């Protein structure tokens, strides 16, 4: 039914088989846009979500335009025993059309329904309150519970968001993604306040474990285009995966990155080893039987999550840090959810040396030289 329109969608997006719309958002700008972009997809008003799910079956590709009633702006759910970057989440929806084997969303959410908060005016109202104090700086992003850009071709959500945030110079928005979509770019008023960012990995991990996502070269071509347009970018080596031949794979990833961008184009770069809530293991084995990396030496970390045994991940970190330093990276590299000891051993400095990680990243985001300029 959707054949004609499906050809207009990017490769990572299969057209939804059905769209559910909450009654409160039938007339919202976003709903109208989505329905006009998917004119042949049947839609219905959602009065009972669970009933609708039963009706369509658990494997149906459903897009749910929801009247979201929770908090739109949140803190990153970091755990206390490891250093968190203090990123603020702007919550725009849940789930993702990509099929990354390691994706933690498989344990976060009960179903695979793509949910988009269609009551954007409520989001903007809440953001206005948070961002009203111009002296307070925010580093925020939308890529925590969904890919920031994977649904952009259908929703145009990020375009609206960057347009709205244009009036708040005290917020720097990071767009985390594994796909290529630059359609939001023309709506950015100040490229210094938007940080397009990509998750990067060894090419064979991208091919085998990040099904549906763009290849590393495509991501980096997009990154280069952003740099040409005046943006700085962010990159995230996360999750770093321990697999046979990882040295070669990650060396190639670093080479590829710097074939396209320079170290100074990168606002910051994170490194994070594969870690997961214990419940993910069974789901991963069931959904992705080819993901053999799960059979490595994972132990229970101080936060209750499973992590690769420290000496193994430290070896990977040291390897990557060395390669990245050779390519020109400096103190704009940080670890996602690691202890001060790991920082010290792999990077030679700790978050404390940088004046705390969230402040450090805030400075890097806003290109502020003086810590005193920050009141966050």
């Amino acid at each position: 039914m959707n054949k004609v329109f499906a050809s207009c969608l990017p490769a990572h997006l299969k057209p939804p088989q059905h769209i559910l719309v909450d009654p409160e958002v039938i007339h919202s700008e976003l709903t109208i846009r989505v329905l006009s972009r998917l004119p042949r997809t049947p839609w219905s008003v959602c009065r009972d979500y669970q009933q609708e799910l039963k009706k369509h079956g658990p494997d149906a590709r459903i897009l749910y335009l929801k009247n979201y009633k929770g908090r739109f702006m949140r803190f990153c759910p970091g755990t206390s025993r490891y250093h968190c970057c203090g990123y603020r989440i702007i919550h725009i929806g849940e789930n993702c059309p990509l099929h990354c084997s390691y994706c933690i969303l498989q344990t976060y959410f009960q179903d695979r329904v793509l949910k988009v908060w269609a009551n954007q005016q409520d989001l903007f109202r809440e953001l206005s309150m948070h961002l009203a104090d111009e002296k307070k700086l925010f580093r925020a992003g939308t890529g925590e519970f969904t890919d920031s850009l994977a649904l952009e071709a259908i929703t145009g959500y990020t375009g609206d968001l960057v347009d709205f945030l244009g009036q708040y110079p005290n917020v720097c928005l990071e767009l985390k993604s594994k796909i290529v979509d630059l359609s939001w770019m023309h709506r950015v008023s100040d490229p210094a306040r938007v940080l397009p960012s990509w998750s990067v990995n060894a090419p064979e991990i991208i091919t085998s474990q990040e099904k549906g996502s763009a290849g590393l070269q495509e991501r980096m071509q997009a990154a280069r285009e952003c740099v040409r347009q005046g943006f700085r970018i962010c990159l995230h080596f996360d999750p770093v995966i321990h697999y046979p031949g990882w040295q070669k794979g990650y060396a190639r990833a670093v080479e590829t990155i710097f074939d396209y961008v320079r170290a100074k184009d990168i606002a910051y770069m994170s490194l994070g080893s594969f870690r997961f809530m214990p419940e993910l293991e069974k789901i991963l084995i069931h959904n992705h039987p080819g993901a053999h990396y799960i059979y490595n030496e994972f132990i229970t970390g101080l936060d209750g999550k499973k992590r690769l045994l420290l000496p193994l991940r430290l070896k990977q970190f040291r390897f990557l840090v060395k390669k990245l330093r050779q390519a020109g990276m400096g103190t704009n590299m940080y670890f996602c959810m690691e202890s001060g000891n790991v920082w010290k051993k792999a990077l030679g400095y700790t978050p404390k040396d940088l004046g705390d990680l969230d402040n450090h990243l805030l400075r890097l985001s806003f290109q502020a030289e003086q810590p005193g300029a920050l009141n966050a």
Partner: protein
Amino acid sequence: MLTYTPLTLKPGEILEIDPCIFWATECRDDLLDSLQRQGQLQPVLVQRSGTGYTLVAGYSRYQGLKSLGRKIYALQAEDPGPWEKGMIYLSSNLGRTPDTLMLVRALRYFHPLGLHLQQVRLLLGIPRGSRQQHHLQAWITLPPAWDGVLQHTPQLLTCAPDLAKISYPDLDTLLPFFRDLGWSLNNARKFLELLRRAQKPENLPLEEMVSRLGLDGILAGDLSPRDRIRAILDNLGRAAYPNYFRLRDQARQNIKNLVSGTAWNCIHPDNFESPGLEFRVRVHSRDELAEASRQLSSIASSRHLRTWPVYPYE
């Protein structure tokens, strides 16, 4: 509705036992005593087959009467099919509370017959959609030779979904471990998990891995069952987590040296996520406390602390 004809048979006229008798048990002494004193109060059920009869229900009574050399009062059912026979048998045993093995045997009988399994589950007291149903369903996909394990380790039923994912040749290799040793549920789960992990990197057939790690030797060895289980899990753990075990052995030795000759107990609780150590001591008096305090000071200045006992950063 089936019709029944009353008969009196000599034990030798019953030539076969029908597979529908899935809970066959030998005649108990009290039943034998009752048959001897009061005679047979309830008929057995038979079906005509060739020159004789096949027993469909009443196995214990039949065995008792046969041993007493008595004639058997029977009802002959008119050609019931396997399903009807199973239901007759189940209905005639409604007073019994089936254990795990009995449930498995009943389901193994009914499952290939397909229809109305819900009715069977109802009679067996298996709640619809329950975990128990899920586990039993998985168990009956295992080779029947596994059923005997449930006799001494019924809790293994909860591992059925994991066992059902293992190939038949691998299950054959695995069976002696469960047949010959009694596992706690926790250890059984650990065993299966470690097997899977140790097997994965090279995707070895289980038989090869068991022999490579010497697990078959441990199983056949002279250790107590408890120590055999411990040794099996240790060997498997070392195969699945070689780096972790290397660190653990080193740390244990270092810690042992550190607190040797003192009342202090020391552990590293963090799975090498930190160099952290925890010291514990139990004291019963002020004097013991003073002594423990002195010992702690001596530990703090011990030469064994020149290198910290837990150092996972290399």
